[in-house]
């Protein structure tokens, strides 16, 4: 019996090799699904084996659920994309050749992200993230329309600058660590870093964190490093948008949080909380206002992703067990909900033949099921009960208001603004005289409604182990 963690890493690798070879897209999609399913199983299997804590790899309370989440969403997304790409082929937006690319890259990205998550080594983490970014860059440019190329280009430049800065930050961290931990891999191990953080040079550590913040912040899509995000979401294939919003942002945030743990363990270092609060608030308010003028449905939800990343960053910036708990919960809920939204949006765009919000009307009369899915998704993401997002926002606001009334007030205003914009657009899409052809949908609702069901259940009841993990991690985050 092989260790699940290696299965976790090897499955995508094998899949890439195979997919690169397979030319038939149906087979490719099938393999894609199988591979993602296997990694998902591997991820779940992690629960039942004892925790790994090696030189390169680590499994602890923090990343275990993120791994499961990532592989799970990857799995559902692969199911969705299987039903999605068929339509794309018919409309001729994609050719089998590109699909070959697509599937191979999909697995690359999944593997890279998993790697970044389970890495116990700052360098390895960085490699994984970079790999994931580059593969998504190519996928964003997949349609080869001018807009797509431009989006990919933008994504690429900003992404690689971010990468470079993050790398510099990583080097600095190593520099700061090597004095204490000695040279070599030892100085890059998470557990070691956190353990010894108190002894580090605060100045250099803070400097490092600034670079890491800007670098990985670009991945997370915080304003003002967000520029790549909306275009990349709106121009790439929808499954990729789902994965970007649902997973990549999370992984970037994960990296940031790991480093925040290190700084939190060093009392003399710069108080990063304030910076994160600032960035978070900027992102929330900015994104909320940007929502009002959107005409492209996918771009709309891309901005909503920015807003939520802002909320999460704010939560971790506030700190404290409750706020951190809320942040973690919000991370999870957001990735589930947002990917679900992108599933349904993808189908809507296909049946209506457009992504322009103005051309999508009266969905509730033409495609009730899609309409219901969209409505649930949007209300869930807007923080209406019963959804996990509501629970996390409840925790966050109610816990942070007494301590930071003014900041929380700003946050609340931002949330309200975003809510207004989303509902406005939602009503525009759902109601009114139907537009476009009422063609039948060939959509798989399974992933969509599985996600929504999880979100709603989580809004009413959280399983005990999850609460335990969150509590522990929240405590570590300080």
């Amino acid at each position, binding site marked *: 019996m092989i260790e699940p963690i290696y299965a976790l890493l090897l499955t995508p690798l094998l899949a890439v090799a195979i997919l690169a070879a397979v030319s038939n897209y149906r087979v490719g999609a099938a393999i894609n699904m199988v591979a993602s399913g296997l990694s998902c199983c591997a991820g779940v299997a992690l629960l039942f084996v004892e925790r790994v804590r090696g030189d390169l790899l680590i499994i602890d309370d923090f990343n275990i659920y993120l791994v499961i989440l990532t592989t799970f969403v990857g799995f559902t997304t692969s199911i969705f994309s299987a039903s999605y790409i068929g339509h794309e082929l018919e409309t001729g937006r994609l050719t089998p050749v590109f699909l070959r690319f697509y599937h191979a890259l999909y697995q690359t990205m999944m593997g890279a992200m998993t790697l970044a998550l389970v890495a116990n080594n700052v360098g390895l983490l960085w490699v994984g993230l*970079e790999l994931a970014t580059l593969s998504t860059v190519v996928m964003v440019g997949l349609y080869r329309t001018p807009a797509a190329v431009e989006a990919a280009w933008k994504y690429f*430049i900003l992404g690689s600058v971010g990468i*470079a800065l993050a790398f*510099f930050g990583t080097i600095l961290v190593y520099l700061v660590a090597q004095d204490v931990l000695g040279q070599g891999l030892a100085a890059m191990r998470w557990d070691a870093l956190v353990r010894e953080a108190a002894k580090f040079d605060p*100045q250099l550590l803070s400097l490092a964190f600034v670079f890491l913040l800007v670098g990985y912040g670009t991945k997370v899509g915080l304003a003002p490093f967000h520029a790549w995000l909306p275009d990349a979401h709106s121009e790439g294939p929808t499954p990729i948008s789902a994965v970007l919003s649902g997973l990549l942002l999370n992984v970037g945030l994960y990296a940031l949080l790991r480093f925040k743990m290190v700084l939190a363990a060093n009392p003399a270092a710069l108080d990063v909380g304030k910076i994160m609060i600032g960035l978070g608030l900027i992102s929330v308010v900015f994104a909320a206002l940007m929502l009002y003028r959107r005409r492209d449905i996918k771009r709309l939800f891309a901005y909503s992703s920015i807003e939520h990343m802002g909320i999460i960053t704010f939560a971790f910036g506030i700190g404290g067990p409750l706020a951190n708990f809320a942040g973690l919960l919000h991370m999870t809920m957001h990735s589930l909900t947002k990917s679900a939204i992108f599933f349904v949006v993808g189908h809507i765009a296909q049946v209506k033949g457009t992504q322009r919000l103005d051309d999508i009307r009266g969905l509730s009369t033409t495609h009730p099921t899609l309409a219901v899915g969209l409505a649930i998704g949007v209300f869930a993401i807007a923080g209406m009960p019963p959804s996990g997002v509501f629970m996390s926002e409840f925790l966050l606001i109610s816990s942070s208001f007494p301590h930071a009334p003014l900041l929380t007030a700003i946050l609340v205003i931002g949330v309200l603004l975003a809510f207004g914009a989303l509902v406005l657009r939602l009503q525009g899409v759902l109601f009114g005289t139907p537009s476009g052809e009422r063609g039948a949908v060939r959509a798989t609702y399974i992933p969509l409604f599985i996600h929504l069901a999880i979100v709603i259940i989580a809004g009413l009841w959280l399983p005990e182990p999850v609460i335990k993990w969150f509590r522990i991690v929240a405590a570590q985050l300080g």
Partner: protein
Amino acid sequence: MLSFLLLYQDRITATLNVFALQSVMLTLAVAWQAYSQGAPHLLVTALLALVVKGVVIPGAMHRIVRRLEIHREVEQVIGGGPTMLAGLGLVALSFLLVLPIGKSGRALTNPLVREDLAFALAIILLGMLMMITRRNAVTQVVGFMSLENGLVLAATGAKGMPLVVEVSVAFSVLITLFVFGLFVFRIRERFDSVDVGALDRFRGERGEPS
């Protein structure tokens, strides 16, 4: 440091040459590091830097430039003077940042690291400055490259940083080059110049009433 030259240049080919020069300097620096730290594997990095950044990339860039018949002079957004001033400010800032390190708490073992950290920081910042002051895709690439140079400098300055890092650096640079070439090429075939500003034509939602 040679980055100033980079900022100063107004012609692409010249820019490339200076970049090659910078890379060579970097090679020397890294080699020196290798010698001083007595870490032979850094020589690999030096060699890597020399070959890739000193020879291959400039060559490739020249080829691209030639193939695209890009008009020779670079359109700068800001004039040379202000750019230089900004560059000076950035260098000052980087030194300011690095100096206090080690004062507080445990001192870093050798001062060399600190200086070379300062230089690396400076190069990185200057590289970014270059990226944002130039319109031209190729020069942006060059700016990015010099940024990477700074990284390598810093990486090698860090004692005994495992090999995985250099590998990843080189790896990233290669992919970088590959994808850049890809995109420059594509942009070439889509638009009639590699002017990044031209891309804005293709953005939706401009000026639509709410």
